[in-house]
């Protein structure tokens, strides 16, 4: 037997739904303290030398907060951009290509920033 729900499940423009809505809220909540901490770190480093930037980012607490902020922000912004693409791009092929590019961009930012934080903490 096929229920009405099974017939429509996954047929929205993004092929999934409330999971993304919930994840956007979850990461949004996490972003509030993490973004404030991020701003405090970055503003306190405005105009600083490379040595003091590295000293601050090598602090274990700062490094962990920056990593947490990075992960939460990246998940949040990937979902956000996906919604924008789904709203404005109606050609199926272009939409799928842009949704893939969205994922690649997010991963590239995460890997590059994560690599830099790891190198500053363990590799210099």
């Amino acid at each position: 037997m096929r229920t009405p729900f099974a017939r429509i499940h996954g047929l929205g423009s993004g092929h999934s739904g409330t999971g993304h809505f919930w994840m956007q809220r979850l990461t949004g909540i996490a972003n509030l303290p993490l973004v404030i901490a991020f701003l405090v770190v970055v503003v306190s480093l405005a105009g600083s030398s490379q040595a003091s930037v590295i000293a601050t980012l090598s602090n274990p607490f700062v490094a962990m907060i920056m990593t947490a902020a990075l992960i939460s922000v990246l998940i949040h912004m990937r979902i956000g951009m996906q919604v924008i693409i789904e709203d404005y791009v109606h050609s199926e092929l272009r939409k799928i290509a842009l949704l893939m590019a969205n994922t690649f961009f997010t991963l590239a930012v995460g890997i590059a920033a994560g690599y830099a934080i790891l190198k500053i903490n363990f590799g210099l």
Partner: protein
Amino acid sequence: MAEPRVERPLSPHLGIYHFSITMAMSILHRITGGALYFGTLLLVWWLLAAASSSRQFDIASAFFASWFGQFILFGYTWALLHHTLGGIRHFIWDTGHGLQPGEREFLGYATITGSVVLTLVVWTLGYMFKG
């Protein structure tokens, strides 16, 4: 796209609405979100520069210290704070509060006023404690 076989009425579109603060804040929330998305490249550049060499760090620092770099960072700060306050507004709405006439307009004006004031506060503090 295939030609529609019958003339169907269109749902109301952008042209029919008059300006409202909630509409402006909705558009700004999306624009600031998109700007922050690409703005992460600035963070990546800064982190990679700090992790690579003093030469690379000096190049990045010189850009961020230039008038154009400061302008971009100022805009980035505002976008971040505006999107953050807009997010808080959405959380308030998620609980079912702040949706009445008057309330939602108040939240809109609070978002834009708050984001501008907070941006100025952050930059004032930044210049006061500049290393």
